[in-house]
């Protein structure tokens, strides 16, 4: 079985869970003898190509004189290129991209329809432009390669997936790693993104959601037929971090939040819970690692509550710094308002850190060794954190059983489910 897979990022060039999940899935699928061509907007050449052949969309020429490409372009023009879509990225990168790209619409059209196009592969101001061009590339690749099925990860690649389906006539599977409702909240929906997500799912032969929570969102807000949606929970890649060591420099216990400081991640609930704990217990420090549009408001609130000496911001962390942060932590909290899956708690557990997670996260559906609270239940969250800090047997139990639990969440298992979905789609397609 051969799959044409469209992604937006691939390790090591990732900014969030999407790239990690796509990579894990490809490795898992390989174990089940599935061949893959993985298309990314911009390949850097240092991607791990053991599992898949990486195709760099920037290298693919598009002959827009071909009829099917033109047809598709005509359909695409509803995209208002250059619209300011909500950044799915930390502000520094956003500002940089904003500087980089100052083309006029005309220039853009020329660029998009030019022979080759240099993708940034990021999430900047020219995102819609890249999405449109990526769709053209999708059509071209579909015409050139031989494959059985198309698999597109998140809305950014859905147009490419649809184009590939139209060119090749092969069935399309779309994978919902996150929805616009998770990213923006109900009142800030970007209608274009919503439109692409909905269209992708409507056109798809099968929709894979990363949790039942996401499945419900897709049914409720996008009106997608529940019978073609299947949940396949994410997994996590095992890693050996035994050689990593960090000297603890503070005597207090450390409670950590790690994620974008945006509405979706609920950082303010973590802050309010910290306040409640510090009123009763001075022997704790709180760390907020991440960056985002709520940063300033959060700093103001910390000052207002006068807990600045015990509440620390680290900015955006990545790579080894994330692992070090876990080594320094006694409790990890993920208070997300809406989290389609949520990989970070699994990484924390893997590093022997007990976790408190919100019930509004997909990962809560698969985890046993975690305390689950409603994101808005600040008191419950504070109580859970306090319990983990003070009643040793509980944290010891989580640490011991948590590692084992996480090690059993293998991509190999998730990939097996995905492969079964491929097979059912192919079977239906024949009939």
């Amino acid at each position, binding site marked *: 079985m051969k799959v044409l897979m469209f992604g937006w990022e691939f390790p090591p060039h990732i900014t969030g869970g999407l790239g990690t999940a796509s990579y894990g899935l490809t490795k898992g699928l390989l174990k089940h003898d599935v061949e893959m061509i993985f298309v990314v907007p911009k390949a850097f050449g240092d991607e791990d190509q053991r599992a898949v052949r990486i195709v760099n969309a920037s290298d693919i020429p598009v002959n827009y004189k071909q009829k099917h490409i033109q047809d598709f372009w005509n359909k695409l023009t509803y995209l208002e290129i250059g619209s300011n879509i909500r950044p799915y990225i930390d502000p520094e990168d956003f500002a940089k991209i904003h500087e980089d790209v100052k083309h006029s619409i005309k220039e853009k059209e020329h660029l998009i329809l030019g022979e080759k196009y240099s993708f940034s592969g990021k999430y900047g101001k020219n995102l819609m432009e890249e999405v449109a061009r990526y769709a053209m590339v999708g059509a071209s690749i579909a015409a050139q390669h031989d494959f059985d099925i198309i698999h597109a990860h998140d809305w950014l690649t859905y147009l490419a997936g649809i184009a590939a389906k139209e060119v090749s006539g092969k069935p399309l599977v779309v994978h919902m790693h996150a929805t616009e409702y998770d990213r923006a909240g109900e009142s800030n929906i970007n209608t274009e993104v919503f439109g692409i997500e909905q269209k992708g799912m409507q056109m798809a032969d099968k929709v894979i959601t990363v949790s039942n929570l996401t499945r419900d969102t897709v049914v409720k807000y996008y009106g997608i037929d529940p019978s073609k949606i299947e949940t396949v929970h994410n997994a996590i890649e095992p890693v050996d971090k035994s050689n990593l060591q960090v000297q603890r420099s503070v005597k207090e216990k450390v409670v950590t939040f790690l994620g974008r400081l945006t509405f979706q991640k609920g950082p303010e609930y973590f802050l309010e819970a910290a306040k409640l704990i510090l009123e009763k217990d001075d022997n704790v420090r709180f760390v907020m690692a991440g960056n985002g549009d709520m940063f300033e408001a959060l700093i103001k609130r910390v000052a207002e509550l006068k807990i600045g000496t015990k509440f620390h911001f680290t900015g955006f962390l990545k790579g080894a710094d994330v692992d070090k942060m876990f080594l320094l932590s006694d409790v990890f909290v993920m208070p997300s308002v809406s989290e389609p899956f949520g990989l970070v708690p699994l990484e924390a557990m893997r590093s022997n850190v007990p976790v408190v997670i919100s019930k509004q996260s997909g990962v809560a559906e698969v985890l046993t060794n975690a*305390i*689950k609270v409603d994101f808005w239940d600040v008191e419950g969250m504070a109580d859970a954190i306090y*319990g983990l800090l003070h009643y040793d047997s*509980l944290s010891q139990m989580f640490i011991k059983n948590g590692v084992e639990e996480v090690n059993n969440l293998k991509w190999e298992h998730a990939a097996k489910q995905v492969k079964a979905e491929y097979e059912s789609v192919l079977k239906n397609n024949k009939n």
Partner: protein
Amino acid sequence: MQSVCLYFQIHQPYRLKKYRFFNLGNDHYYYDDYLNKSIMERVAAKSYLPMNNLLLDLIKKHGKKFKVSFSISGSALDQIQEFTPQVLDSFKQLAETGNVEFLAETYAHSLASMKSKDEFVRQIQMHQARIKELFGVNPQTFRNTELIYSDEIGETIADLGFKTMLTEGAKHILGWKSPNFVYTNAINPRLKVLLRNFRLSDDIAFRFSNQEWSDWPLTTDKFADWLNKMDPREQVANLFMDYETFGEHQWTETGIFEFMRNLPEKILSKPNLCFKTPSEVVKEYQPIADIHVPNAISWADEERDLTAWLGNEIQDEAVDKLYSVEIAMRNCHDPSLQKDWLKLQASDHFYYMCTKWFSDGAVHEYFTPYGSPYDAFINFMNILADFHIRLEREGNLRNNEISKIPDTQREDVFSILEKFTNVKLKQLIENLGDDELSALFFESDQIIRDKMMKVIGKRKFNKIQQYRDESNALSKKEIILYKEKIRLKIALLA
């Protein structure tokens, strides 16, 4: 003649309210009154009252031929009295018929038998007194929380003067043997042991309404026939079950009440069958053998062990922390602390912390008011932390009150010890319990300590150090008490 022995268990814990850590030190009321009241009212209406009336009717109809027995935990009795006094009246009516035996158990429906013999005995005596007060009889038969039993527990019960104890006819202790005989305790044969016939008991308690069961529907004819088919040498079929089986676990609609209304007549129609209470059973039949139970069993789960209450990390910490105050509680005379101490000991709190049901959530969810075992643990530990704060405060108050008592006894014990040879001191140390040794060592002055250090083993020292770390500081009164105990041991040595 073969007997049918019916025993029904009634227990309701005081369920705890949601108690956050920020309540610590401020809020000293721990119970969810609304939940406790509404559960008691519901169960009374659906089960206790209709079933009591049914039993009264049966006693009226069959006279002395129909017998049953009850064990009602102290916390259930207290809540019945508080929330549904009409149920208590109805039990009193049953008691007056003389056809009903009331059994003794631990007042708090606790796990004290596994943690502290002293507390175990104290609670049994409390419960006996309560039964005597309410029903005018002194219980002769004992049943432990969840039918927990071991040879050692049986020995304690025999020492208290009980003639009979009930437990589970667990497969792994019986082997090829039948539960339908009277057995004796392996250490003290004066204690007779009756074993639950779990197959016949569960046919009623669990399987009655199960339509997948090959014997569904269970009719009185069928059940009486099964009883009648007992091997002629066998003595008794012990049908032990929760009283809530009737009307609560098996709803009225399943026909459970009709079944029970007609069952006695069907059983009594068999010439070889009769009803007896546990005390009557052990009077009637000769025990066949002793039964060896070195490790504690219970009537719970497939395993018939104690893993529903003890064994995972959080259960063990909660139970250990709870019983760490036992000595302090013996000297505490604050009635509200004493009441809370009992209510917190109910085995249910630790059952809610069980994690072995993750694969089988339904059974667990049915019995727990918590979202998860972790919630149950955190809530309990918050409350226990507040309880410790109060106990410490109370201890300090008490110390102030007795600070005026002249401490002349201190010199006495010390002066004796100073004259001891190393051999003799070592002898004494070997005769002291960890708590006594800890008290002696840490309340002594440096000279005695140095002397003791020479003869005390490193392991023993670590042990008392640990004991000291885990227990509260001793009050003056406790120190005097320990000195008295040590003086006694010295006298015994001489």
